[in-house]
């Protein structure tokens, strides 16, 4: 691969939609940015909205920006239209220029000075590098620098690319990325005028906005909601899988109205929608599975008090307007904009009561350790929302234990039932510890890490459970499980790593009831927990 400091070869390639060859050579009047890409590369699809934005911010005098396709004209044309590319596209179908520049992967960016010397290269997707390129170009063009790629905009900070075509591409198994965050603003939502004798609530029910009555999203109510945010109503916040419907600020406001949110909740909803559409969460899979999973929202930080989120008794139920309405507004977006409607794309076999609303706050004041958002990399004073693809609650009652290890042993026995008893390793769990259990555990000097390690080391399925039936779920995978000994009994380890067990403190101060929530399939091919900060 061509390195910084080397001289880039000049070349000519046919431009998309023309018969002319376009010559690219030096000296040139401005810097040049070459972007090698493949149309079916998810990372390339992730990158171009940022390059579009770069092209819009910098005029042609500031940079010669060329996108170089390694694919044929017809798929490149479709890609250019789909991504609304704002730069000239050149066709390198025979890969001759790719061989000269020799990128290891796509997307590969080569920033060249006016004399064709390589200033910077970037392979794959990396927000820091993209911002550095933008800064460099602004410096060259003597214009105001700007942040090209914001931190929490629904796209991960880095993502590996695909092998460049000239090096033979193996399949990388990634999802099709359809998040086009920087799409043109959407059209405004249409208006629905009701006849005088039509009851608005009945209309919303019959139109299928929800199976429960909603607050009718009248123009006046939606306007009030929109006044609580500085974002424009037509801004597309994210595309919600599985239909990849456009979640505009206006549609989000309409769902917030229907769910009964206070306008201040827009501050939480916008980052929440972005977080849900972050590819690591894999909402597409979560919404289309026949499994029980539903996105659980966990709220941390000062916003709990600012907006009235409850973290005490009844935390999983009808305890506070903030919890109930945020969870519901989110679900309304997933069905009405994302298209995950029960009986249609949402084919869950039994569903999950959390699909009405599934939102808790952590009781940080009763947590002697670090709350969840600190573990996820944020400061205590930073408000944040976390999403976890959760099964329904599994209840753990333990009123007799006087020791930390006894409480935790009881929890282990419930953890062993996550997914199904004899399945191991492919999922995570959130353990919601109630304040009384936390007191007992902490009295014995356990740190949060001690708790997690203890649960990890003591949750296993006895090997003899696999010797009874030969073909039950999990049995066929037993050869891959790790064998350990728990209290003298040979077992398979339930979880792959201690980090698969997440700990949250919540609930009332009376009652020694904790809970275990299993997950959907996890890891890079399943759904991973995501945490986004709130402004």
């Amino acid at each position, binding site marked *: 691969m061509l390195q910084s400091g080397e001289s880039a070869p000049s070349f000519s390639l046919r431009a998309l939609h023309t018969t002319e060859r376009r010559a690219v050579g030096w000296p040139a009047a401005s810097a040049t940015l070459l972007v090698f890409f493949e*149309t*079916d590369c*998810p990372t390339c699809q992730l990158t171009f909205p940022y390059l579009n934005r770069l092209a819009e911010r910098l005029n042609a005098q500031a940079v010669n920006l060329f996108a170089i396709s390694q694919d044929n004209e017809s*798929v490149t044309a479709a890609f250019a239209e789909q991504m609304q590319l704002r730069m000239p596209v050149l066709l390198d179908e025979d890969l001759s220029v790719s061989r000269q520049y020799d990128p290891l992967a796509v997307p590969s960016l080569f920033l060249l000075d006016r004399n064709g010397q390589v200033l910077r290269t970037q392979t794959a997707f990396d927000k820091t590098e993209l911002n550095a390129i933008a800064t460099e170009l602004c410096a060259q063009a003597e214009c105001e620098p700007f942040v090209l790629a914001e931190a929490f905009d629904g796209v991960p900070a880095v993502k590996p690319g695909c092998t460049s075509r000239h090096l033979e*591409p193996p*399949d*990388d*198994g*990634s*999802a*099709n990325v359809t998040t086009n965050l920087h799409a043109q603003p*959407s*059209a405004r*939502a*249409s*208006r*629905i*005028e*009701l*006849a*005088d004798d*039509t009851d*608005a609530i009945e*209309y*919303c029910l019959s139109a299928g*906005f929800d199976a429960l009555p909603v607050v*009718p*999203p*009248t*123009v006046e109510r*939606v306007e009030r909601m929109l006044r609580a945010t500085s974002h424009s109503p037509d801004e597309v916040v994210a595309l*919600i899988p599985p*239909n990849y*419907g*456009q979640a505009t600020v*206006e*549609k989000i*406001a*309409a*769902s917030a*109205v*229907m769910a009964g949110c206070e306008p201040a909740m827009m501050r939480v909803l916008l980052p929440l929608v972005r977080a849900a559409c972050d590819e690591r969460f*894999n909402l*597409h*899979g979560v919404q289309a*599975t026949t499994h029980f999973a539903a996105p659980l929202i966990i709220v941390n930080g000062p916003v709990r008090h600012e907006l009235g989120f409850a973290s005490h008794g009844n935390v999983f139920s009808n305890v506070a307007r903030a919890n109930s309405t945020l969870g519901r507004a989110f679900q*309304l977006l997933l069905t*009405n*904009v*994302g*298209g995950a409607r029960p009986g249609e794309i949402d084919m869950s076999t039994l569903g999950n009561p959390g699909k009405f609303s599934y939102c808790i706050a952590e009781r940080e004041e009763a947590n002697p350790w670090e709350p969840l958002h600190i573990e996820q990399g944020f400061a205590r004073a930073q408000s944040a929302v976390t999403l976890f693809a959760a099964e329904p609650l599994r209840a753990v009652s333990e009123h007799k234990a006087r020791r930390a290890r006894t409480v935790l042993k009881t929890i282990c026995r419930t953890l062993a039932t996550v997914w199904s008893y004899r399945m191991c390793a492919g999922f995570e769990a959130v353990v919601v510890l109630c304040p009384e259990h936390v007191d007992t555990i902490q009295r014995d000097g356990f740190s949060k890490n001690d708790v997690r390690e203890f649960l990890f080391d003591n949750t296993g399925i006895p090997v003899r459970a696999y010797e009874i039936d030969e073909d039950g779920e999990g049995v*066929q995978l037993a050869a891959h499980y790790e064998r350990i000994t728990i209290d003298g009994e040979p077992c398979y380890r339930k979880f792959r790593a201690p980090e698969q067990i997440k700990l949250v403190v919540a609930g009332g101060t009376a009652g020694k009831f904790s809970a275990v929530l299993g997950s959907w*399939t996890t890891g890079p*091919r*399943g*759904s991973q927990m995501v945490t986004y900060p709130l402004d």
Partner: protein
Amino acid sequence: MATILINPRDEAQRAPRQAAPRLHSLSGKTVGLLDISKPGGNFFLDHLARLLTERYGVAAIVREIKPTFTKPAPDAVIERLLHARCDAVIEALAD
């Protein structure tokens, strides 16, 4: 006064998809079998491949596997490996 609501649902216009033309016969054709990688898919598809070849005279079977059933198939699997090589494709989900 009439009540006016903001439409809360997705309103994106999507071009209708045309179903692929039907084959009159499977005889001599190449059929792709896409396993979405759920457990058991291979047993089902093995049997299907046998039936297609033995009973319907299918000339060749192309087998592909999605990297994971939890996400849409990458374009590479759909376009380059299946559509480019097959007269018909059967996608199989099994558990």
